[in-house]
């Protein structure tokens, strides 16, 4: 079941998404499997059989509703009771990036495209604050908002077959980090030594929806030291 808050990915909508997510995390209802926050919606996964059995055991007079009606009712109650302004301050995560060289083969291209120097691109990219709207596409991959349009660059015409984990890239007006090695068409500008996907930890990702991240440049030497 999907709870929608309009179709604009803005801060106000994001706060509503976070408030519902926070409530569901703290008060999961019986039969709920999980919830998935996105730009403008929260998707709630439920087990219809579990909901059916729960409702059946509670309603004595044989008044059995369909599981989706029961979940709809539960979610409406949650939405009605939800108070504005319950969203906590976002956690800020600082991510080191070694820009350029073999880690960022498209850095010069992005600079040229925008009539900037390579140092300008690094300085603009590493001075922004980026909001993690949601995770998706790959484990721990953040959909980030807030990139400066001065360093935007279209995707490559032909995607690369494999982009190493930790690579930082730009696609259109978005920046992102590849948590695991995947094919992709982004313009690559650097690489972080931080791991974004941590399968043995709880939560299994460095970032969560609602975090704010900033990038800071590190040297090749610092990158190597970090990896060790």
């Amino acid at each position: 079941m999907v709870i929608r808050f309009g179709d604009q990915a803005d801060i106000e909508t994001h706060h509503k998404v976070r408030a519902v997510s926070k409530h569901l995390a703290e008060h999961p209802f019986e039969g709920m499997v999980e919830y998935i926050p996105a730009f403008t919606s929260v998707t709630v996964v439920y087990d219809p059989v579990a909901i059916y059995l729960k409702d059946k055991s509670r309603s004595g007079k044989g008044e059995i509703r369909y599981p989706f009606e029961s979940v709809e009712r539960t979610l409406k109650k949650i939405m009605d009771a939800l108070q504005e302004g319950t969203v906590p301050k976002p956690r800020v995560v600082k991510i080191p990036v070694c820009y350029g060289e073999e880690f960022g083969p498209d850095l010069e291209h992005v600079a040229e495209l925008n009539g900037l120097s390579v140092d300008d691109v690094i300085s603009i990219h590493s001075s922004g604050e980026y909001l993690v709207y949601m995770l998706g596409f790959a484990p721990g991959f953040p959909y980030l908002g807030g990139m400066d349009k001065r360093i935007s660059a279209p995707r490559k015409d032909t995607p690369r077959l494999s982009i190493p984990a930790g690579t930082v890239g730009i696609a259109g007006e978005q920046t992102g980090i590849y948590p695991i090695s995947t094919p992709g068409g982004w313009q690559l500008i650097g690489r972080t030594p931080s791991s974004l996907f941590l399968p043995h930890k709880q939560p299994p990702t460095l970032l969560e929806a609602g975090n704010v991240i900033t990038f800071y440049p590190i040297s090749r030497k610092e990158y190597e030291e970090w990896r060790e």
Partner: protein
Amino acid sequence: MSIYVHKPGLLSTVQDGGRTGYQQYGVIVSGAMDHFAHQAANLLVGNTGDEATLEMTVIGPVLEFERAAVIAVCGADLSPSIGGKAVPLWRPVYIPAGAVLRFGSSRQGCRGYLAAAGGLNVPHQMNSRSTYLRAGIGGYQGRSLQAEDRLPVQQPTELGELIAGGIQARMEEGEPFGTVGWSVSYEMLPDYGKHPVIRILPGAQQSWFEEESLKDLHSAEFIVQPQSDRMGYRLAGKPLHKVKQQELLSEPVTFGTVQVPPDGNPIVLMADRQTTGGYPKVAQVITADLPLLAQSQIGSSIRFQPVTLQEAQEIQLMASLNLRFLRKSIRMYFV
């Protein structure tokens, strides 16, 4: 006890009901493609229903059982045999120690499920034993089986032991394996076949599509394309056209979501789908019919039929009652 792999088959992976609870972190669900066959196989060997099974694709493995075991094979018929004698599907089978279970190529269907009493014993990662190939986690060392692997099996349940004892007692001397005279009723099985009719619900962006295209979706024939895999089934038929071009922000998708990329050829998302997608969703395959798709081979033709959410949930509840009935019947037969 473990199972020694002589030949791995085309793509054999350990799967359970899937890695739920982590989609908000972008971690895909994975799990058995045919949930019905996976669960039925488990129930037949006295398991509770969601223990890890081996999903075998089109060409099955050759496996040696180091100790005696009770197994069940459900789903696709990958021509299993022991000592030259065909092993029947959809029923518990007792295998003596040292027996070699040979699968061949598919006679019918696409994915076979092998359950062993107790369940396959690989470590849990993020609450699941399912293999997530791209990230290399879960299952057997995060990958598909290879020759010389040793796949550990857990201790059977009490019911599993009773099934083993029950079948063994009635086995005749010199038989390569033992089994029972009954199997899961055909009426209980999903309507597997070469030309399945798959029931669908309207998708979140159904209204983005032309009236004519929706008619085509509900009546035309679609062919399963060669690029289809555990991630998604690519279909080709009459291309589906949108009324107007709109951009969609990425949002969650699920098992059975039918999304339509710009070329108009629908893709049905399957067990290894990404958690989110940015293509408009024209339809959603009902849970009870996902096994039909999971067993459709490349080149088979399928049709879609619209149903209401009420109907879909009734069908799903019936399917789950059927499985409960199966569990009870097995217990009554052996206890």
